């Protein structure tokens, strides 16, 4: 008893880094190669399909890359304690951000060459009074400058934030927590405004006649919906490999499960808010978005979005479900796929109004992004400790959750 007691207060040791096997690394690289090959093939044969698929995956994975540092920033601002054992897991998602920068540059190329957005076509804009009026905002140079600036700012914030966190592993001092707590509010403001802007620019402007002020929040709610799913998956994966043993237990999974549940409801709340106001007001310039998705073969995926809410809602409702890591993992996989389909539902009707248009090459591009994300995140975790073991709040959290 005495031994167990003193153990709870003992200093938490560095659990080490993730060991990524050569086979796994090779698999990720093969997936990336497959993705590049499929994208190249589509680009040569069907550019519209290539860019629509690319944009879906770019936005989905860029959101996940940004989500980790958003989570860490929120928890720095609030001085949160429970999340200390899983903070590094979230921070590892930022490992993907350099690749997100590259895919953003690719989107710029697609934009500048007029292959993605209708408003990049000079003749279309000139013939359309509405687009001419919007051209002060929707023009290629401004699009590239503002998206590059916002992404660059978020990227630099994330780097500084994670660097402080990694430094704390050595110093074990509260000064780094304080520094990040001071950095976080600025990040959160830039993130809120910047991510809204990127959602408007990169997704909403696919249909430049349509507008919805809640659209940025809708994209954010999807970002955080998928973040918690990925968090459950990654934490479970590391715990299964024994890297978070004695640090993470079913109480932490319970907390993650509660957040998965909460942001399932939040996403549905925001999604329905957007839908109901447009449906009620029934203005032609607003309803066109939903008509394009209801009166076509897109209706099936529109109905699927109800399942995106209802399935996790009921699967995560019981307490025991949220405390079962393997159950959470299954729900998390569904949630990630559902979020991907949601972005597909936002993007593709602008390219293929008649209905969903997917084949094996789209799958190949998606697998390429999965490979790139997995490669970048596992690389981060293999270069850095998987636990922020220098965090003064960690001992408290471990102790708190183990009573």
């Amino acid at each position: 008893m005495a031994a167990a007691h003193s153990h709870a207060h003992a200093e938490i040791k560095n659990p080490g880094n993730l060991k990524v096997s050569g086979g796994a690394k090779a698999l990720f690289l093969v997936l990336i190669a497959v993705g590049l090959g499929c994208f190249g093939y589509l680009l040569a044969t069907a550019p519209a399909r290539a860019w629509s698929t690319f944009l879906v995956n770019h936005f989905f994975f860029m959101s996940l890359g940004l989500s980790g540092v958003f989570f860490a920033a929120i928890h720095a601002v609030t001085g949160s304690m429970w999340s200390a054992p899983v903070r590094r897991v979230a921070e590892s998602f930022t490992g993907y951000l350099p690749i997100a920068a590259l895919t953003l540059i690719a989107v710029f190329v697609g934009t500048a060459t007029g292959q993605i957005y209708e408003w990049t076509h000079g003749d279309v804009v000139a013939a359309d009074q509405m687009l001419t009026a919007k051209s002060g905002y929707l023009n290629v140079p401004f699009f590239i400058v503002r998206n590059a600036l916002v992404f660059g700012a978020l990227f630099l914030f994330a780097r500084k934030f994670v660097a402080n966190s990694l430094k704390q592993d050595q110093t074990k001092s509260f000064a780094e927590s304080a520094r990040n707590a001071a950095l976080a509010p600025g990040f959160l403001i830039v993130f809120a405004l910047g991510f809204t802007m990127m959602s408007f620019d990169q997704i909403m402007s696919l249909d430049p006649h349509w507008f919805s002020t809640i659209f940025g929040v809708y994209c954010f709610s999807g970002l955080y919906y998928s973040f918690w799913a990925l968090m459950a998956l990654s934490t479970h994966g590391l715990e299964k490999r024994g890297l978070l043993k004695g640090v993470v237990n079913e109480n932490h999974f319970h907390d993650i499960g509660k957040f998965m549940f909460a942001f399932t409801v939040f996403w549905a709340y925001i999604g329905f808010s957007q839908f109901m106001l447009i449906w009620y007001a029934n203005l032609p310039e607003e309803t066109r978005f939903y008509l394009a998705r209801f009166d076509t073969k897109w209706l099936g995926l529109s109905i699927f979005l109800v399942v995106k809410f209802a399935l996790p809602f009921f699967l995560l409702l019981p307490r025991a479900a949220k405390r079962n890591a393997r159950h959470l993992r299954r729900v998390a996989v569904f949630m990630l796929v559902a979020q991907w389909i949601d972005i597909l539902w936002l993007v593709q009707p602008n390219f293929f109004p008649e209905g969903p248009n997917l084949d094996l090459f789209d799958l190949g591009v998606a697998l390429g992004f999965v490979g790139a994300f997995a490669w970048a995140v596992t690389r981060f975790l293999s270069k850095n400790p998987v636990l922020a073991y220098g965090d003064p709040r960690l001992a408290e959290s471990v102790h708190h959750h183990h009573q």
Partner: protein
Amino acid sequence: MAGKNTAGIVGFFSDERALLQAAAKVKDAQYLSFDAFSPYPVHGLDQAMGLRRSWLPYVTFGGGLTGVTLGYLLQWWTSSQSWPVNVGGKPFNSVPAWVPVIFELTILFAGVSTVVALILGCRLPNVKKRAFDPAITRDRFAVMIEAPCGGAAPAGGKKFDESEITSFLKSIGAQDVRVVAEEGWF
């Protein structure tokens, strides 16, 4: 003093860790009934005491389902059956417009039914019960081994023996052990 007038025997502890350990030991000693007192919620106490999961969430769920159903029926009946009114050319039974009210009634029914069930389940309000020591609302933690009603030891329960319980509570680290009379608590 044992018997009818004794509500129970209470042991005081100075911190939550001591309370958690004491609660687990009292549970293992298998007294008929005992309770723990703390100034604030202590994580893991229900587990240490061996309490079963509360039945309250099922009330909440039932209340929520009732709210969903009634919320829909209310609007369906008033807007499309009893007094149909054409609003903006929309169908009489326009489900999207019902959702906010359904949502609110779900929350209302789930919330109110939970509070009512909690009050009934705790047999509140009870003006007769008083805290046996104001310190348990401030800075002290306590475990009370309760006397069986009427003073008789029921079948299967451990005999309520004042001196045995007093020495037991001391042996598990109580700083102070007191016999609480019914007047003080019940």
